[in-house]
């Protein structure tokens, strides 16, 4: 595809209704101005430190994979205020909203982590906040719905399509095309039209920048591999960004394999999709032969998305990063494994990355260093994992 704005190789671009073009160009300009303004960076850094609790630790697992040749480090974004990496870029975009003179925030959310981050920013900056969330996700991530409402956000259920993240983004885009004059849409992932994939990456880049410095301090060398889960791909692009130009570092994006890649119930967009246009950019998309978008499936609401950020499509097509799936079962096993071995309960999203890292570690013949982005904490998933395990036990007893 010929991309005129926001190209990542042949991917990316700005494929939106004409009415959103002036708004996206306004956002692009505000972002570029802010990047050149030291006062903006100072304010954001201050918030990240004092409000959100950066920097986050890079923790070396004491027990996980201690029987392998691999030292696993976890980048503890789960300890960030809000419970996930989402807060990093939401604070950045909230400052941009204020800079553009917008009065209201809208957001979509899957697992609720981006919604929670937007809700806390709305409270902090005293901006009216509306979060679109698929009704399927509201049911399975109920604690986050309550968190958002507690912080004053309005949570609007989305009942269209598969009632998930894709549909929430559709609804937020519809809202934005009516209310752009006083409203900023804080897109929560590294997908969407230009300039979102770039803005989100730049505001999430702090994850990889810190991790790189921390691993050099701890080990005196770069890691051999970096693992991160990929739905839209914001935590992955954030931790990858500063390693992309380090060819010795393997980058592994972990997609939700759902019931398995041989079934049609998964969200493995890069492995099983093909390039197309969804939500404003040309990137890999799960779709049928005519171009109708497939409903994705994952136990993890935050990864349950049939699209993916354009830069990931580019990293995949150039071979710089590899992408592999982890099933619902494997993710739940990793969820339990990390809890038991380190006393850290990961988000189901991040558990996908853990599972893939453990699988790789078992096959390493020489000593290696891995970093896994522990993008969020698992409190929100307790109820869902309990019922998943119960169902599985019930089935195995039959």
């Amino acid at each position, binding site marked *: *595809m*010929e*991309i*005129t*704005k926001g190209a990542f190789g042949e991917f990316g*671009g*700005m*494929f*939106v*209704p*004409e*009415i*959103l*073009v*002036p*708004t996206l160009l306004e956002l692009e300009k505000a972002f570029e101005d802010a990047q050149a303004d030291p006062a903006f960076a100072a304010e954001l850094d201050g918030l990240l430190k004092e409000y959100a609790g950066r920097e986050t630790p890079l923790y070396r697992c004491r027990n996980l994979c201690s029987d392998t040749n691999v030292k696993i480090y976890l980048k503890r974004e789960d300890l960030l205020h809000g419970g996930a990496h989402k807060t990093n870029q939401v604070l950045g975009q909230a400052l941009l909203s204020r800079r553009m003179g917008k009065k209201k925030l809208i957001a979509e959310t899957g697992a609720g982590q981006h919604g929670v981050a937007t809700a806390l920013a709305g409270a902090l900056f005293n901006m009216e906040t509306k979060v679109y969330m698929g009704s399927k996700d509201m049911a399975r991530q109920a604690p986050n719905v309550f968190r958002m409402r507690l912080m004053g956000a309005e949570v609007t259920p989305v009942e*269209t*399509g598969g009632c998930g993240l*894709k*549909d929430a983004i*559709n609804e937020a*885009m*519809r809202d934005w*095309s*009516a*209310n*752009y*004059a006083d409203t900023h849409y804080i897109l929560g992932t590294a997908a969407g039209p230009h300039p979102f994939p770039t803005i989100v990456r730049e505001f999430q880049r702090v994850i990889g920048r810190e991790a790189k410095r921390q691993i050099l301090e701890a080990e005196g060398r770069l890691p051999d591999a970096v693992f991160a889960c990929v739905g839209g791909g914001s935590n992955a692009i954030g931790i990858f960004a500063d390693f992309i130009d380090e060819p010795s570092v393997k980058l592994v994006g972990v997609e939700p394999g759902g019931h398995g890649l041989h079934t049609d119930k998964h969200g493995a967009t890069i492995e099983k999709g093909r*390039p*197309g*246009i*969804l*939500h*404003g950019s040309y990137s890999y*998309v799960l*779709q*049928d*032969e*005519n*171009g*109708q*978008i497939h409903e994705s499936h994952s136990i993890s609401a935050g990864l349950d998305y049939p699209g993916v950020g354009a830069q990931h499509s580019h990293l995949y097509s150039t071979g710089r990063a590899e992408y592999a799936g982890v099933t619902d079962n494997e993710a739940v096993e990793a969820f339990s494994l990390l809890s038991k071995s380190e006393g850290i309960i990961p988000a189901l999203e991040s558990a996908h990355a853990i599972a893939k890292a453990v699988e790789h570690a078992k096959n390493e013949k020489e000593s290696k260093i891995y970093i896994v982005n522990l993008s969020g904490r698992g409190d929100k998933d307790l109820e869902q994992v309990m019922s998943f395990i119960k169902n599985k036990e019930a089935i195995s007893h039959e």
Partner: protein
Amino acid sequence: MSDRYVKLFDELKKNSQGAFIPFVMLGDPGMEECEAIIETLIEGGADALELGIPFSDPTADGPVIQAAANRALEKGATPDCCFDLLAKIRKKHTCIPMGLLVYANLVLGRGAERFYRRASESGVDSVLVADVPVISSRRFVRYAQENGIAPVFVAPPNADDGQLLEIASLTKGYTYFLGRAGVTGADREMEAPLSARISFLKDAGAPPVVVGFGISRPEHVRLALEAGADGAISGSATVALIAANLGDAKKTRGELLKFVKDLKAATRNELYVRGTA
């Protein structure tokens, strides 16, 4: 490129009329029913047709047209079935301009080249891709031109002069002027279009300007024409009549016939001058 739009707007101008263009979703509520519906629109006096190919994720559409797409998809409508229906209609009605309103991923689905070729073979005159703005349109415009299809672009209310100039020079057949911000839907009415923006487009050499979004009553059509537009498109209001009468094809056609006649009547200059419409 076919000259059906040119002929239509010349003819209407001669008769001091504006164009009334209804929109329906191809395959809604089923392929056969849809064919009868389109015949009814033509019988009622539609000057041109704007037709959608159902897409799973129509982000520029409100609930009424989303529901129409879902009904069509549930009945198994595919782009190829839609092209077959279009070809059938073209065979019977050789003069009426037919425009397609689609989303980018349907164009790319089986290849953009194939899409525009199929459109051309089916007698389609124009294609508007809802999520391809001018800034990202090069490849789409090229395939359209190679296949004799007019690429149509939307002029939104928030466009600045530079954007309007680009839209004016790229859009062919007609210019789709947004009556208001937001997505399609009749629940929010059009705002009286800024006549200054319409004359700006015309001075820039844009083809005839047709106002869409929020057009559901004869007075909306009149407002659009008074502001200098050459016509009006009504989508959600048309589709809502189909949705309200599902399962009763006769009633659907009856109500659509009356609706199209009423809105077409509002495009006749002498009628609204006399205030009888």
